[in-house]
């Protein structure tokens, strides 16, 4: 058991109490709990789930200062309960949250070869309104660098048939405060590759964040920006 308290869910456990009702049963899923942080806007004000657009994607850094995650408001509620296979075995995706159950979050680090949005540009993005040429449809997260296509409505599962050795995008666990219409990020489940990410981008992260910052856990609040604000350019494919 590491200091971040690796929690194994078997069936619905007490850890789920108080979360929005309607989550499918979690079986043997592994949640890595990180700091519980409130999602806020650029000015530090809590974001309201009902105000999230379905036309664009949002990015916030979580669970570490340098690890971006996508926050998406899908046009329709995903069923959830998808059985996915990660590096450490099978897990179940919980589905969406928010008032209509449409709000989902995934790490924005491609589970294939770790491409991610930087302030200069993003090879990976969510195709909300304009179809991806590669996928031939909207509603997908596509990493242009190696044409990896993920479906956020299926728990971030990779949907191309001819590709090998790519895990689903790791999911960010969201908690929804229905009374205030506010969102919290509380952990990550599925196959996260943060250690590989830190190793691969050691030089770049040091340059961008300065010494010792990249691996710090985000605390209290995480600022949510539109991808178009977060990254200067967005690759399309």
């Amino acid at each position, binding site marked *: 058991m590491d200091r971040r308290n690796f929690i194994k869910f078997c069936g619905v456990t007490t850890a789920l109490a108080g979360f929005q009702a309607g989550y499918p049963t979690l079986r043997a899923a592994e949640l890595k709990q990180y700091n519980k942080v409130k999602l806020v806007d650029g000015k530090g004000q809590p974001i309201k789930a009902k105000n999230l657009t379905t036309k664009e994607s949002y990015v916030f850094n979580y669970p570490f200062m340098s690890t971006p995650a996508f926050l998406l408001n899908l046009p329709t509620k995903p069923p959830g309960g998808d059985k996915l296979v990660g590096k450490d075995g099978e897990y179940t995706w919980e589905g969406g949250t928010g008032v209509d159950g449409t709000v989902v979050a995934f790490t924005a680090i491609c589970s294939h070869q770790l491409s991610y949005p930087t302030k200069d540009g993003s090879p990976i993005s969510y195709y909300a309104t304009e179809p991806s040429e590669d996928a031939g449809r909207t509603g997908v997260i596509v990493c242009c660098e*190696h044409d990896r296509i993920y479906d956020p409505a299926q728990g971030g599962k990779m949907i191309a048939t001819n590709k090998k050795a790519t895990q689903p995008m790791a999911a960010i666990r969201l908690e929804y405060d229905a009374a205030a219409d506010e969102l919290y990020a509380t952990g990550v489940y599925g196959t996260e590759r943060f250690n590989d990410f830190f190793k691969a981008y050691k030089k770049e992260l040091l340059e961008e964040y300065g010494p010792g910052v990249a691996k710090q856990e985000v605390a209290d609040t995480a600022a949510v920006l539109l991808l178009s604000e977060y990254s200067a*350019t967005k690759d399309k*494919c």
Partner: protein
Amino acid sequence: MDKGNNEISRRGFIKLGGAAAATLATGGLASSVAQADDKKAHMVGTGAKAYLPKAKGPRLVIVGGGTSGLTIAKYAKKEYPKFDVVLVEKRDMYSSCFSSNLWYAGVINLEFLADHSFLDAAKNNNYTYFNATCTGLDRAARKLYTNQGEIAYDYLVLAPGIGYDYSRIGVKDPETETALRTIYPAGFTMPTEHSTIKAKVQGFEGGVFMLNVPGGNYRCLPAPYERACMIAAAFKKNKVKAKVLVLDHNPDITIKAKGFHAAFNELYKDYIEYKPSMEIKSVDLEKKTIKTEFDTITFDDASIYPGVRGSKLLEQFGIMDPKNPQKEALIDTLKYNVIGDDRVYVTGDSRPHPYSKSANTSNTEGKYVAKVLAARAQGKDIEWYSPETICYSLVNASPLEGISVDATYAYDAKTKSFSFSKDTKMFEDRDASKGRGTLSWAKGMYRDLFA
């Protein structure tokens, strides 16, 4: 003291005048003279074991630190941590062949290609980098010979890359071949070739700069066309009155034809002349001409790409397929082991498969072969799956614009042959996304090989 004579400086540096040197040669070096009389053959690295730490598990030796070798060294260790992995590489400085075309147009610098350390790759991924040239192989004794001594292996992977076959462009004497390698290098193997071509392109003062596309399965199908674009971009930028003449052995551009034709016609109309079905039959270095079946073509400067073959190492080690027109390896095409020897494997561009000989192919194939090795070391086996050829080509240097292809392969068990799978996709409308993608793909590859 007379400065012309022997003066010993504080660094112990001895400056010798003529007279003093003569004295030393007859007196002080007598023992060296005696040794030089011993005229029996002295071979480097024979009879001694390589000075390596004792293997802590099954020893996997990999020859060749290109894309294939680096990938297998890293991922075999990841797949099966008990492997004691030794990467034998003759170069002491890495520089990638992939992305090198971009240098000719000044889109990247040499640091982009070469600032990647074999030492860091080894340290980061828990294997040993052994800087040596292999000189022989004894498969019965499971020993690899190098100029730094012998290495016993449990598993051996040879990833030596390609060689050039100049006979395929009608050159059959060592004088002409050596002159061609020196004066008009192909630029598809050694970094020193890239440096020569870069200098040629940047210093070109006008006239016809000839490139050719060979027949057969040459290394990196789109590269000659991308190179034409990059060289034309440099000429355009330098405002040189010059033409890139592309002589293609094939009846049309071999891959991403629509995208390249569009770039040639729309971006470089005055700079690129493309001629299909032009097989080079001979080269005349004096006259600076090449002959095809019907034409004689004059050039001012050139980079001449002969036919491609499997590395000569395979032939020397007796594992070349004599029936293969490109002299590639005689291996099981699904498991990569030499036929009849499950301890020796050949991967990367010496493979006999019709796959595109590209970095992404070798990288993804390497990950599969790493799994094969890990499985076999544990008495298991795994199912074949296809490598993936994701290949970006930059067609415009300013602004950056690229095109790409994403191919996988299908295996037909009946005919035991490979073809492009139905999922193969071409992205031939050039744009800035794929321009950026060309660079970020390369950075991703370096990360995967070295971090």
